[in-house]
């Protein structure tokens, strides 16, 4: 299986994503330069974390017009998997691949810390290897992670199981104390309606080695492997 990792000017988690695929999964990964129009036959596209275009104007606003995004949108329309992590989530929202938007953290502080997220839906191709309600410890590192959408969109996301990950506190409850950025409904990650595009603020690619404090990101990548191989 081949993963295409898009590198924008200012991406800084592309290498972590590459290592996650190659070292941890033992699968093939290629970097796709944002100015290219060729996804190199990738089965799965990853929009990695970082600060594309220096976060100018709005996070993800300019990257969404990078030439390669036309192919990424077509890939998503075909029903093929697209993963947006952190800045990649912001870009996917700006590009209209996912509903809603990500705003400045409610605290106005950049948050770089491990957070607890609960798996809300295991019926997706990104979470099948987890148990429903399982709580994962995965790092976040962002200044603009406050997920927001209008009431109707939020209700729709909730009722259709598109809320995949939710921030929880030390008692596994989605309270304000467990919410690192003020996201609506403690939302940490969502899918699109067809379930082939996911966006999440936490970094599963940074939680694959016990040396780094957590291996809870493993199930995320193994789920994708199982889904695409099926």
């Amino acid at each position: 299986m081949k993963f295409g990792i898009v590198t924008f000017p200012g991406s800084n988690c592309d290498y972590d994503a590459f290592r996650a695929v190659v070292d941890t999964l033992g699968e093939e990964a290629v970097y796709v330069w944002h100015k290219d129009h060729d996804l190199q036959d990738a089965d799965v596209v990853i929009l990695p974390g970082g600060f594309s275009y220096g976060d100018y104007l709005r996070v993800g606003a300019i990257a969404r017009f990078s030439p390669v995004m036309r192919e990424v949108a077509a890939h998503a329309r075909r029903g093929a998997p697209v993963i947006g992590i952190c800045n990649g989530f912001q870009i996917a929202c700006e590009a209209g691949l996912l509903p809603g938007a990500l705003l400045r953290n409610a605290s106005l502080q950049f948050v770089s810390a491990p957070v607890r997220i609960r798996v809300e839906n295991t019926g997706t191709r990104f979470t099948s290897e987890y148990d429903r309600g399982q709580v994962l410890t995965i790092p976040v590192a962002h200044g603009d992670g406050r997920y927001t959408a209008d009431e109707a969109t939020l209700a729709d996301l909730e009722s259709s199981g598109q809320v995949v990950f939710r921030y929880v506190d030390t008692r596994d409850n989605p309270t304000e104390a467990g919410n690192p950025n003020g996201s609506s409904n403690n939302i940490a990650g969502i899918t699109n309606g067809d379930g082939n595009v996911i966006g999440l603020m936490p970094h599963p690619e940074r939680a694959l080695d016990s040396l780094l404090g957590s291996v809870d990101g493993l199930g995320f990548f193994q789920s994708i492997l199982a889904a695409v191989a099926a």
Partner: protein
Amino acid sequence: MTAYKVSVHITPRRGILDPQGKAVEGALHSLGFAGVKEVHVGRYLTVDTDAQSQAEAEAAVKAMCERLLANPVIEDFEIESAAVR
């Protein structure tokens, strides 16, 4: 063609939590500006453009706002323009 200067004010959508505005509001209160009710922090852009008419210049910038300059999910925008002499 006439040269126009078009100004765009982009502000957080009403009803969306604006922590930057709140922080500034709090700072103004602590400075003693007791009359301050609400503060919002947004962005201000100017676009210098040539167009056949003022309406055309504004329509073009409106399209720019809808496609790139503002995000309708979270932001409102207002446009003002004037011919440059």
